[in-house]
């Protein structure tokens, strides 16, 4: 009896984790879903062919979102890696960590409305540069906080050993620090990619409706009650993270542990 209840709980848990993806994919292949039919009636590849076709707004916004996310992730990871070292060995580490945490903890959409004035003055509203900068402002604190756990006594000891043995700063960085930080860099890149990829509120305010990322399109389709295109856009939003999560699972478990 106990055994079957445990199995039932696991089955429910598996359903909770997988059902959303299955449903969204089913809807993305559908064009008709009238109540009370449980499943969509007409399954077709037509939506995907139309939307992924050359020049369609969705395929364009997919490329825009991907470019923004890759650039933000790369910049935030590199800068975060450098700045976290500065904070980690700083006498005021706790204060600087707190100050770094604050922008990360703030709601991006509220942070965006507070910064909007400056973005207008700098001519960064409604263009790609503005969105990249705004997303970098929220991704960088995350990256810094993430790398703080990397800069421990062990890493410092290894670096000092290189200097003691006559090695230079560049050599210590290239042959000791970077190899040790490899998995951290991969995970951080991935997490920053997700922060940018998932962003809606901040992008809608700084983008001012002129830059259409995938999340903006999902919202538009939902507002238009176009559930099939919304589901398809959702699938496009989910696919890269699912692939990356699958690929990086091992690293993430290590990090969380």
């Amino acid at each position, binding site marked *: 009896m106990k055994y079957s209840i445990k199995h039932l*709980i696991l089955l429910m848990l598996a359903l909770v984790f997988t059902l959303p993806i299955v*449903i969204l994919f089913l809807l993305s292949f559908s064009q008709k879903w009238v*109540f*009370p039919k449980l499943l969509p009636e007409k399954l077709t590849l037509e939506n995907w062919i139309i939307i992924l076709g050359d020049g369609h707004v969705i395929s364009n916004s997919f490329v825009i979102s991907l470019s923004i996310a890759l650039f933000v992730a790369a910049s935030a990871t590199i800068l975060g890696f450098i*700045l976290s070292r500065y904070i980690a060995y700083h006498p005021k580490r706790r204060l600087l960590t707190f100050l770094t945490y604050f922008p990360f903890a703030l709601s991006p959409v509220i942070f965006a409305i*507070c910064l909007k004035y400056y973005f207008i003055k700098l001519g960064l509203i409604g263009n790609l540069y503005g969105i990249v900068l705004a997303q970098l402002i929220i991704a960088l604190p995350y990256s810094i*906080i993430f790398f703080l756990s990397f800069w421990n006594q062990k890493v410092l000891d290894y670096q000092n050993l290189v200097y003691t043995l006559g090695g230079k700063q560049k050599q210590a960085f290239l042959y000791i620090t970077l190899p040790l930080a490899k998995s951290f860099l991969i995970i951080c890149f991935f997490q920053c990619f997700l922060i940018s990829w998932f962003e809606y509120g901040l992008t809608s*305010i700084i983008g001012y409706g002129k830059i259409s990322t995938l999340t903006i399109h999902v919202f538009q389709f939902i507002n238009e009650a176009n559930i099939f295109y919304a589901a398809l856009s959702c699938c496009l939003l989910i696919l890269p993270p699912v692939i990356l999560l699958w690929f990086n699972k091992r690293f993430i478990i290590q990090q969380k542990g």
Partner: protein
Amino acid sequence: MFKPFNKTFNFSILLLFTLLPLLAGLGYAIAYSFGLVGVLNKGFTLENWKILFSTSEVYISVLYTSWLAFASLSICIFISLAVVLAFPTKFKSGIFSYLVYMPLAFPSIVAAFFFFQFLSNAGILARLCYQLGIISQISDFPNLVNDSYHIGIISTQTFLSLPFFILLYASLYQAEKLEDYQKLAYALGASKKQTIFKISIPILLKRSLPSIIIYFIFKLGSYEVPLLLGKSSPETISVLAVRKLQKFNLLDIPQGYAVAVIYAFLVLILLFIAFKKSKHQYEV
């Protein structure tokens, strides 16, 4: 030559990308709310704050947002603790070690869309109830999205937070050597119930408290989910602030900034508590 760890360079970048935007953004919001800057403002005034606090809108919004965060986190922590204590090693390897990550691939807006399709009157749950003969028409199904009990928002927030807490408790279970404590408790004559409620749960909750507070802060700032699944009134802090700032009534803008200041102050206090509770250096 470019030195990646040059102190001046590091401090300048830190200032430029994290501290300056924070100070500039909040400074502008505070100045606007007190009438010091802005199109219609004419100098220092407390009028905007008085107007804001003269109605119950902002009080209700803060309470409502806190309640949503509290409810979704409580449910999430309850489920995560139950699952991890029942299956402590299930998420280390095998299919569940992959499946548990699935909700992490969902942006809030996608999760909100799915739960709308799942819980609405014409959604999957309603269709299932119809097929099972529980309801006979759409209107028989209760409102579970944009509803008075906020079921849609709470379900979505719980779904989004669940993997984080399951993984957190699974890793704490190993790190805190809970299995050893449990064996010791059994050897000393404790029952299974006593072991769970007097040893395992208190240790897990105590160790996860700073993470819970940080997650609570994140939930306070949630925007997309309440925007799509919430009612027009009450509104969460983020939705209220954005509505006041983005609508065409210019007289509402200072109050919108005042709401943003209240929210930032709330986050600051909670963050301070989280840092105080954390004995270790704070990390993600």
